[in-house]
């Protein structure tokens, strides 16, 4: 059944995914297995196919919608049984910037890979990023900026996290068209990611998830 679940994700069939998750729960399958061997396994294949250009972004997004349909049913059970996600990430577009398509896509990819994503939206102040990360016990803050004029806000977030003694405890990853890995190094961020798939790999690496 979990294989069937993965396959339904690949075809982006949200109704089938929801109904298979329900069935799996009814059959008392371990929620952790439903998540890992069904939903995340399916999305991993979707990610791999996207990486190798076998499918395109809309296919990934249709699969992500189906994943969410399944997660909606599974999540209450995961919470009830105290099953943690593989990692918690606070993400947002920095203050002064309203470009959010890229940040949204990264959030969708991370969620699909099993991360818990707290999306703060756009035009987010440095304090809000740091406070939200502390409050939600996030391991990663993800910052997005699309203009050279808003990139300096990323440095402010890094500085504020340092001031609060979070260096090493909360990793900061950055992305957005004008950013680079040199810029990430320059401001003391932990990594630069060029797209959503890369962000998933990077978050996995940071958190030591296989």
């Amino acid at each position, binding site marked *: 059944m979990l294989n069937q679940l993965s396959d339904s994700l690949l075809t982006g069939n949200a109704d089938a995914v929801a109904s298979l998750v329900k069935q799996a729960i009814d059959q008392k399958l371990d929620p952790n297995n439903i998540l890992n061997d069904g939903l995340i396994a399916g999305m991993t294949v979707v990610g791999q196919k996207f990486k190798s250009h076998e499918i395109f972004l*809309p296919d990934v997004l249709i699969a992500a919608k189906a994943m969410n349909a399944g997660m909606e049913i599974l999540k209450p059970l995961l919470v009830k049984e105290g099953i943690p996600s593989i990692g918690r990430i606070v993400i947002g577009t920095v203050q002064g910037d309203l*470009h959010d398509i890229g940040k949204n896509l990264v959030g969708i990819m991370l969620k699909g890979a099993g991360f818990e994503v707290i999306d703060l939206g756009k035009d987010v102040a440095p304090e809000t990023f740091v406070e939200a990360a502390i409050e939600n016990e996030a391991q990663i803050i993800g910052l997005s900026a699309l203009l050279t004029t808003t990139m300096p806000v990323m440095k402010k977030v890094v500085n504020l996290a340092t001031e609060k003694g979070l260096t090493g405890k909360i990793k900061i990853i950055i992305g957005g068209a004008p950013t680079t890995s040199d810029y990430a190094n320059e401001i003391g961020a932990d990594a630069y990611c060029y797209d959503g798939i890369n962000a998933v790999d990077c978050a996995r690496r940071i958190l030591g998830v296989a």
Partner: protein
Amino acid sequence: MARQAQESFRSVTKPVGVVADIRKNGIKSIYHGDGHNESPAPLEAIIDQSSQLALYAVTVGENVSDEISRLFAEDEFAPAAMLDAAASQGAELAAQQVEHSVRQQLKASNRWITGHETMSFSPGYCGWHVSAQRKLFEHLNPQEIGITLTDSCLMQPLKSISGVIVTGPRRIFSFDDNYAFCDQCKNRSCRERMKAIHTDK
């Protein structure tokens, strides 16, 4: 799905634009902006050799961005991303339309010179720092058509484009893509643009 995005785009947008001629000494101060440009940069020499200059700003409006946000909020990720791409393309087409109308106007008023061409440049590209938007806005006043500029030089609505349309002899638009800042350039769009001006419009 691409067609759906285009239809949805048409139903929620109404492109508008504003364009105004500007003299060479006027554009120099706008180009200089807050003094953050890279130098040398292609536009420096192009402005000097130009025959006509026009500032412009276009937008496809706020509704489309609201619609994209609504789709994302409802987990309709694929239609949202398609509509976003259609809206960006729509803004680019609107900018091209303005460039076309500048040419038409020059022709209509017998100011078009054979062998001349037009090319559009925008703050934020090719060494022209995005902070020059402030001066461009002061001069053009696109607020009149609903485009405003934030302190961080972001235009609202998001799907808007501003710039200068330069007219001049075709040869002035030929430049190499080996400026220091070209290393960071992901699309090298100048190459395509140069090719395009060597084909008849």
